[in-house]
């Protein structure tokens, strides 16, 4: 698993046509990741390679460590008192927990979408999308406008909001708000997108829209999608990891994992014989 000697760079992605997800070039290489909250261990040594330009689903029951895992990938645990991260995570070969690395720069490369849509309530749609760029120092009007349209188009929201870009972001419907949050994350042009149960608060129609959006985005971005909804993982993810009680039980292509799981626990969970 740790092909660290070859130090894979992004250029390898062109040869990423193999069937086994572990063999393709990776966006994230995670080795022996432990996370503690105080004395309680939330993740017990996860080793996993997140393939590039694919949707990787993380499934498992509530409290299995899906969110904890996601948040370790963009160093969001640093603001939680008592949280401790151990292990090695590399993003396209660079160790993200290296002392010299700035979490700010990392988070510009690794965007995140949350369970509950959270557009900034004081800002318009346009301001919401552009805040990341603006505060990173982009002043060029043309560039900002270009990125605004690009991000909203990618989030499949452009046609719905292009005539009211100055309306408050929180006036949109729930599904639109979540797409606005996706646009906000995309506007800074990240390389990886982390999605923490992005559809769990949405109705079926909005869910279907977001899911098809995730599939489209998966062509251009490396996406890590945590979900407790098995169907959602089945519909959107190219490969899927099954977490249980802070451990990685199984990782493989979604088709293989769902139809022919190699682990008994995976099978039990998928068939609902599991509490």
């Amino acid at each position, binding site marked *: 698993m740790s092909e660290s000697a070859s130090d894979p760079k992004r250029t390898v992605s062109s040869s990423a046509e193999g069937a086994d997800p572990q063999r393709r070039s990776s966006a994230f290489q995670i080795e022996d990741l432990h996370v503690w909250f105080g004395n309680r261990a939330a993740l017990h040594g996860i080793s996993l390679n997140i393939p590039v330009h694919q949707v990787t689903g993380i499934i498992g029951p509530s409290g299995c460590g899906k969110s904890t895992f996601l948040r370790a990938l963009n160093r969001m645990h640093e603001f939680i008192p008592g949280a401790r991260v151990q292990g090695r995570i590399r993003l396209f070969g660079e160790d993200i927990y290296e002392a010299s690395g700035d979490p*700010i720069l990392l988070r510009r490369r690794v965007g995140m979408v949350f369970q509950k849509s959270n557009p*900034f309530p004081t800002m318009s749609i346009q301001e919401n999308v552009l805040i990341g760029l603006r505060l990173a120092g982009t002043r060029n009007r043309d560039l900002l406008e270009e990125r605004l349209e690009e991000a909203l188009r990618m989030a499949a929201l452009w046609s719905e909001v292009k005539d009211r870009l100055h309306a408050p972001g929180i006036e949109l419907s729930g599904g639109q708000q979540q797409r606005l949050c996706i646009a906000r*994350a995309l506007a800074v042009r990240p390389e990886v997108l982390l999605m923490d149960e992005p559809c769990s608060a949405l109705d079926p129609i909005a869910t279907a829209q977001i899911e098809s959006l995730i599939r489209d985005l998966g062509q251009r971005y490396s996406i890590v999608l945590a979900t407790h909804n098995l169907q959602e993982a089945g519909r959107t993810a190219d490969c899927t990891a099954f977490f249980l009680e802070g451990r990685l039980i199984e990782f493989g292509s979604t088709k293989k994992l769902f139809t022919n799981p190699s682990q008994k626990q995976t099978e039990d969970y998928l068939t609902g014989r599991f509490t």
Partner: protein
Amino acid sequence: MSPLPSPSHSKPHSQKEASNEEGADFRHFWIRKVVDRFFQILSILAAIVVISPLLLVFVFLLSSGGSSLTWDFLTQLPKPVGETGGGMANAIVGSCILVAIATVIATPVGVLGGVCVCEYGDARLRAAIRFTADVLNGVPSIIWGIVVYSWVVLRMKTFSGLAGGLALSFIMIPLILRTTEDVIRLVPSAYREAGLALGLRRSQVILHIILATARRGVLTGVLLAAARVAGETAPLLFTAFGNRVWAAHLQEPMAALPLQIFTYAISPYPDWHRQAWAGALVLLGLVFFMSIVVRTLTRDRSR
């Protein structure tokens, strides 16, 4: 209103037992009803006691000072003893300047202190700051007068508007700090996380997202603190000191409404007494106005 028997009593175990039970139930019903009504009346009375002082004070001030509250009173300087007429224009403007100075000093300190308590520092430091603010809130306001007197007035060798504003700001700082802290706590952490996950710096998240979201609450806190210190007299006694003419600049003794009211009220002249009442009416009106502004702000917020 006859008491409805509860279902459990509708199937008596025996005839006698059932009637006994029903009788007791009936008595309890009336006792409970009386007690209930009693408490209702008591709480209404308490509410009246809470509201009535404001109305009484207002009516009293109107009847005592209303007649002296003329255009001259609002626009003229005080007349020398013995001459009737004159006004408190310098004190009204002075009070506004003093509160403005205090607000300008206290707002950044209080707001940043509140931010620090919520967003930075370890738990011990936060608890220490919070405790300190609470203690400061309880410090009698005349203490601030003495402190500023010995720190500023003695050193500048003159009473001044600046010293008065500073003394008032010391009272405002802990008030603003605590309200800022409270409203920042109300901002859902989802916004904080969303900002951080976008790659914003912590200061940017605080400034552009958290404070922006909580701005109405912060403003409300600042206005409430300003309204509170607008009526303070003790800290101004030996800082701003008072002045019977316009203060030319901030390094001169400055008139303030509460001071002027104090001076006029303890004087032996009936005309000054009437003016003191009018001054009190203006002061109450100012505070009332600020409270209404606060009201409007908070109503917009809940909309």
